[in-house]
């Protein structure tokens, strides 16, 4: 856990608060998975979320995206309270990827991205059957935008490959492209480099920088400390559902409590994969 020099330092984080989560608490019966977590994310900022397995990171993501309705607390995006429906959260401008890849496996890369795009197009079932001029224009624009996004994440040559046949690293990048297709202002990445080799990890890091440069805010969950401390402007360390430490990468990584939580932790056996309970 050494500081890797950041390509990051010259970047100016905007003043505008994109996401504000205040005192978000999520209880499942007697288990408090997320305990009064507050987080602010500004425009153009990359925030890292770390913590041992079972710390509640993914559950917190699920609270943000409307998959779970938090027991207490509130989440606002650009000042407006988020409706507790995934569909509306996406339209409000938040998109995410998944810890365990969840692509539409039997569709091509291009189709996957096009599906992500559909929440921004307006034509209805009937117009799309009748193939009116508006539908054709929209469909063409959707296709073009999807192609563009695939090139943006470096999958320009795999557009017609079925998602399930893509190499693992490409699948993770395809998830990012699909999330970007929804035109988000905030991107949530759940372990974007899990299972990647060092070269792919490096490429992903560059991709996230590129995404941030385009004005998006990014929240990343990751276990790869080197990756997190290089990438992020700010890091939150979650332990047993609450924020243990929050600060710059340098502050967080030198905090003895963080090291304690990772090495001396006694709760590492808990199941992180709360999504399965959804």
């Amino acid at each position, binding site marked *: 856990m050494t500081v890797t020099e950041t390509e990051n330092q010259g970047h100016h984080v905007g003043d505008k608060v994109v996401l504000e989560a205040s005192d978000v608490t999520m209880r499942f019966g007697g288990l408090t998975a997320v305990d009064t977590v507050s987080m602010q994310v500004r425009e153009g900022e990359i925030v890292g979320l770390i913590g041992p397995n079972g710390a509640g990171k993914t559950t917190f993501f699920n609270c943000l*995206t409307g*998959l779970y309705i938090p027991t207490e607390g509130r989440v606002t995006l650009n000042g407006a309270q988020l409706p507790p429906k*995934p*569909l509306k959260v*996406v*339209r409000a401008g938040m*998109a*995410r990827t*998944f810890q*365990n*890849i*969840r*692509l*539409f*496996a*039997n*569709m091509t890369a291009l*189709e996957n991205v*096009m*599906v*992500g795009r*559909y*929440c*921004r*197009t307006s*034509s*209805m*079932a009937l117009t*799309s*059957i009748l*193939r009116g001029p508006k*539908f054709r224009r*929209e*469909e063409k624009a*959707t296709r073009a935008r999807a192609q563009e996004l695939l090139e943006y994440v470096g999958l320009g040559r795999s557009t017609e490959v079925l998602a*399930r046949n893509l190499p693992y690293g490409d699948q993770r990048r395809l998830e990012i492209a*699909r*999330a970007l297709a*929804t035109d988000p202002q905030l991107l949530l990445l759940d372990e974007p480099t899990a299972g990647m080799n060092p070269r792919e990890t490096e490429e992903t890091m560059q991709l996230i920088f590129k995404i941030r440069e385009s004005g998006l805010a990014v929240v990343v969950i990751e276990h790869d400390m080197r990756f997190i401390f290089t990438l992020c402007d700010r890091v939150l360390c979650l332990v047993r559902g609450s924020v243990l430490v929050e600060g710059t990468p340098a502050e967080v990584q030198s905090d003895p409590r963080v090291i304690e939580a990772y090495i001396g932790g006694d709760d590492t056996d808990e199941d992180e994969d709360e999504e399965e309970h*959804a």
Partner: protein
Amino acid sequence: MEFAQQLVNGLTLGSLYALIAVGYTVVYGIIQLINFAHGEIFMIGAFGALSTWLLFFDGQTSIWVLPVMIVGAVACSVLVAVLMERIAYRPLRKAPRLAPLITAIGISVFLQELVRIGYNDPTLFLSDWNPFGFPSAAQKVPFPQIDHISNEFWNVGGVIIQRSTVFTIGALLICAAGLFYFVSRTKTGRAMQAVSQDPDTARLMGINVDRIIVVAFVIGATLAAIAGVAQGLQVTNINFKMGFLAGLKAFTAAVLGGIGNVWGAVLGGLTLGLVEAMAVGFIPGTFGGSPWKDVWAFAILIIVLVFRPQGLLGAKVVDRA
């Protein structure tokens, strides 16, 4: 000659099964519900066509009446299917699988009885008010005869091809082509594929899953309504319980082809129809003839499922990695 004749008969019957089977499979593919009330949607389509005719064209037989009857049939079936989804299935979306299944059987009985009692008596015994003078659906009701279609046939080298047969097979071809186009080339179709592969992720990508489910019911109802009209033209009479056996056979066809897979439903329907026709035509002795045709149809189902439990084309595996 006999073989060619049975081939025609089989394809006709098969087309009818296929049109209905698509409704089972589309809905199953999206919400894993076996909608046992789908046979009744088919029956309501036939009655919708009849009602349209009685209301607007009573006594007329010219061919341009047919498209209007089809529109009427589709409108009735779609309306009932959408209401059914909204009132009965949506509240059970998160219930254990058995609950909607039993509900489906209940709706099936409910719709049958509603048509049986209510078709010529909308107030259900409260008064004898029958504003449109509809006949009772409890007996066989004659289906309108249409010029150039009913009672006319071609004789191709000894093989009798009814015009209504051509209508049925043609309807399947057109519907299958339309469905292919819809599923693979349109926004809603693609969203539908996404929902059937992973509903939760689809929702998180901004797809309105509830709306897609309604679309699935609408597609199934549309095809079932067209099948209802085809059946009416074919058999020349309809009744309130026509949906029961047809629905059961179509469900069998869907399972045979691989439930969840649209092309499986079409293939399964045609296979089932051909097996029945061939069994009637070619199995000699005690076990032959039409009394045994259902036995052979279900025997084929059992044999296929023993060796290919996922059906002929296999359900598209729902990946939830």
